[in-house]
């Protein structure tokens, strides 16, 4: 009875809205047809498809091929093609060549990519920046790869800064990105596969992997997942990341998003799969574990003791940024006996004039810190760095002098805030910063008991997380053979295996010398 009631209620509120959409059946029908032998008819068709002359950058140029003595036209999008190339290698030879030869391929110096007849196919290619040549009385259309898209060059990595090691980062041009990976892995087994994932914008995703390493089931799983999207457009890789994730509402990321080609290459060499997309200056690494998100490429570039030292610092920073504020609240509110007398006296003395309970105090400062951080990010770059430091200093100093917060809280917040910067992965960073607030509430309600309880529940949750079938804490728990590169990294000579959770075709990376 009750079930039924809820069900009907649910139905009532969650109906899918119906829209009266304009039918595009005619267009779809048109795109399925082949091109016409009649020159005039073809011009009409494509003028209609590309809305010429309303669409200013779609150009049609009509001319006569002198050697064949027939009329022809080329159509292209002027902003996406190399105009010089079109002029010099396609148009000029066609007009000026006088020797009578029968074939277009022999006249034009630019290589013909392919010949096609389907209108839909041609349209799709034109939108990519190719030039299409139509000749009177010819049922084939000649397609030239003249694409030249403007973009930024290869620059230094901005978000994952390291001291030692390669500095270059992915940019928005797909060809560059693939080249960056290829130049690190010079192997014919490195496969770059294209997949179109959306219907309207026709965004394509490149799947990069090593054929003789990656487990076929994993590859199939990812391909199936990519094929399953029913959406018009996915503009960016970061949006694709959200489509791909098993738990998009989860606090913790399960896919590694990096802008460093060296990092991508090292993951490919281990048997992971990397996704690239045009217009996105980064790549996705699947599957990703907690360790992949937690490590930094610098750990490996530095000598083993130094690398492990910064690992250790990062672990410490992780715990400090998670627990510093909650620990402070728990201790000052519930477990006063834990504080050494001198510190307790100092804290009590400085808290005496503060009007708020310590939970409110901490929350206020945490919020202020997050505000400064976000503001520093959004502020136009010329005033950016100054406003961050000045804002923090003034806010801290003035708040203490105005007796709104106690100086110890500033130390706690500064420490936990600073530590959170050490976790380099931006998604992981957010996860830690947000769970910190949960811990603060838990500490405010139940003291250390609450912190411990939430910590245990959180650990349960993390262990249950999966990234494309891989447990979040693998290979530590569940245990797999691996390079043993978890909390502490061994010397490179000892890392003999690829991660076992990927079940790679070739498990052994190096044999014992």
């Amino acid at each position, binding site marked *: 009875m009750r079930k039924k009631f809820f069900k009907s209620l649910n139905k009532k509120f969650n109906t899918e809205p119906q829209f009266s959409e304009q039918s595009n059946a005619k267009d779809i029908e048109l795109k399925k047809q082949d091109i016409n032998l009649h020159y005039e008819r073809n011009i009409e068709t494509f003028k209609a498809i590309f809305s010429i002359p309303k669409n200013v950058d779609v150009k049609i140029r009509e001319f006569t091929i002198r050697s064949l003595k027939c009329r022809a036209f080329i159509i292209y999008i002027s902003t996406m093609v190399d105009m010089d190339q079109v002029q010099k290698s396609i148009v000029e030879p066609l007009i000026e060549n006088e020797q009578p030869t029968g074939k277009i391929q022999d006249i034009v110096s630019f290589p013909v990519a392919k010949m096609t007849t389907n209108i839909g196919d041609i349209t799709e290619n034109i939108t990519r920046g190719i030039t299409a040549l139509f000749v009177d009385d010819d049922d084939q259309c000649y397609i030239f790869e003249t694409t030249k898209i403007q973009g930024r060059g290869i620059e230094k990595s901005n978000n994952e800064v390291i001291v030692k090691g390669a500095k270059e980062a992915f940019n928005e041009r797909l060809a560059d990105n693939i080249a960056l990976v290829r130049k690190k892995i010079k192997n014919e087994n490195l496969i770059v596969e294209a997949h179109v994932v959306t219907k309207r914008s026709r965004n394509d995703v490149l799947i990069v992997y090593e054929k003789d390493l990656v487990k076929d089931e994993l590859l199939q799983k990812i391909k199936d997942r990519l094929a399953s999207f029913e959406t018009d457009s996915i503009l960016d890789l970061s949006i694709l990341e959200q489509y791909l994730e098993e738990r998009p509402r989860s606090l913790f990321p399960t896919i590694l998003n990096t802008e460093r080609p060296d990092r991508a290459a090292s993951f490919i060499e281990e048997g992971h799969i990397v996704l690239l997309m045009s217009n996105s200056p980064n790549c996705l690494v699947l599957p990703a574990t907690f360790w992949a998100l937690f490590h930094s490429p610098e750990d490996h570039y530095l000598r083993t003791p130094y690398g492990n030292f910064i690992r250790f610092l990062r672990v410490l920073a992780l715990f400090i940024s998670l627990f510093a504020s909650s620990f402070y609240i728990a201790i000052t509110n519930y477990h006063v006996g834990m504080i050494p007398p001198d510190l307790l006296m100092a804290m009590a*003395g400085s808290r005496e004039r503060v009007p708020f309970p310590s939970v409110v105090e901490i929350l206020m400062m945490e919020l202020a810190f997050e505000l400064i951080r976000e503001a520093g990010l959004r502020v136009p770059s010329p005033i950016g760095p100054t406003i961050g430091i000045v804002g923090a200093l003034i806010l801290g100093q003035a708040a203490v002098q105005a007796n709104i917060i106690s100086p110890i809280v500033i130390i706690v917040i500064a420490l936990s805030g600073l530590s959170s910067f050490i976790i380099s992965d931006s998604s992981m960073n957010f996860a830690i910063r947000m769970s910190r607030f949960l811990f603060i509430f838990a500490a405010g309600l139940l003291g250390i008991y609450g912190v411990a309880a939430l910590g245990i529940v959180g650990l349960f949750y993390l262990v249950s997380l999966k990234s494309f079938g891989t447990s979040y804490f693998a290979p530590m728990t569940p245990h797999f053979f691996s390079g043993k590169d978890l909390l502490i990294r061994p010397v490179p000579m000892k890392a003999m295996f690829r991660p076992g959770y990927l079940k790679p075709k070739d498990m052994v990376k190096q044999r014992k010398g």
Partner: protein
Amino acid sequence: MKKTKTICRILLLLVIVFSLTGCWDREELEDRSYVIGLGLDRSPYKGKIKVTMLLANPEVGSMQGGGGSTEKPREIISFDASDFIVAKVTANAIISRLISYDLLKIIVVSEELAKDPNFFHIIYGAVYDKEIRMNAYLAVSEEMASEYFLKNRPKMETRPHKYFQYMIEHGIENGLIPDSTLLRFFKTKESGTDLFLAMNTSAVRKKNPKFKGENEYYAGQVDATGEMDDTQFIGSAVFRNGVMIGKLTGQETSIVNTLDDTTNINDFLLNIPNPFPGKQKSFAARVMKRENNKVKMNLKGPGPKIFITLPLKFEIMSNPSMVDFSKKKNQEIIKKEIARHFKIEHEKMLRKVQREFKGAPFPLSYNARKYFGTIQEYKKFNWNKSYLNADIYVKADVEIVDYGRVTKKAGN
């Protein structure tokens, strides 16, 4: 549907958890007033005690730079109450903040109350209070505890918790006062066999005290003059079965501390009679105890025999007779003298305690237990009675690690 179910479950879980525990006893730390010292005295009213609380003012001395206050560093209140637990509430009639025993460092009991047969029942309340920690120290003062706290006006450490912390820490390190935590007090009382030593303190200096040998003083007898506080921590009060029965001097206390393996006495300085000719009758040495004592017993027969070997290391700190210690002969002489001195002093002290207070001033009975197969046998042996007839032999295992600077006589 599934969602509602999960939410209901989570809510139920939260309700259960929060009914078990929660922020009900949450208290901001500045809302409390911290008792550093607790004084207990006999009250003129029957069944009551006089409770004295020494409260620290957290504002004094805690602020760097500006914002320092002109308030007094401490507050002292005395009143009559049935026990010192309920006294917390009574004290709130006078003190603005919630009284807390979280930082309780020292419980000072007047000699008068400590000798009261009821004393143990009064102090036993400390076991039940969650805030009082078992590492608080028990001290006995000759005068009233209420008077003691009033008279105690340290010149250097105005903050009381710091004063007591330093005073007790260093006193124990030097061996002049025993490590008399509440834990040891209750443990000794429960075992019922040995004596417990509480530190002896006094804030009233005796008028014209007699000069005695090195450290042979009770609290208040050290004749010091100058611009200082009169409070002294030296010597110990002896408790049997939770009631005070007598006192030991500073020197006797330090001897007990060397014999007791359960305290942490690392090293202390000592005067030892000079075996070499010269005007100076004694030389200074640093005594270091790094290993546990070896205790052997022969518990058969009417008079049990107890052999204690002290493995001690020495550093010679002064050489009044300008002896050349590079010579083997001189080394032997000083070693023998130290061993002799330690044997005499230790045996003298142990015999005195055995005769006067009828027990061992440190948990010696623990060593005796291993000589019995069952508890019944041990009980039948009756340590308390048998110990009175025991012969105790102390032997010092002297090892001199450093003879000090080798001096050369002029002209050599």
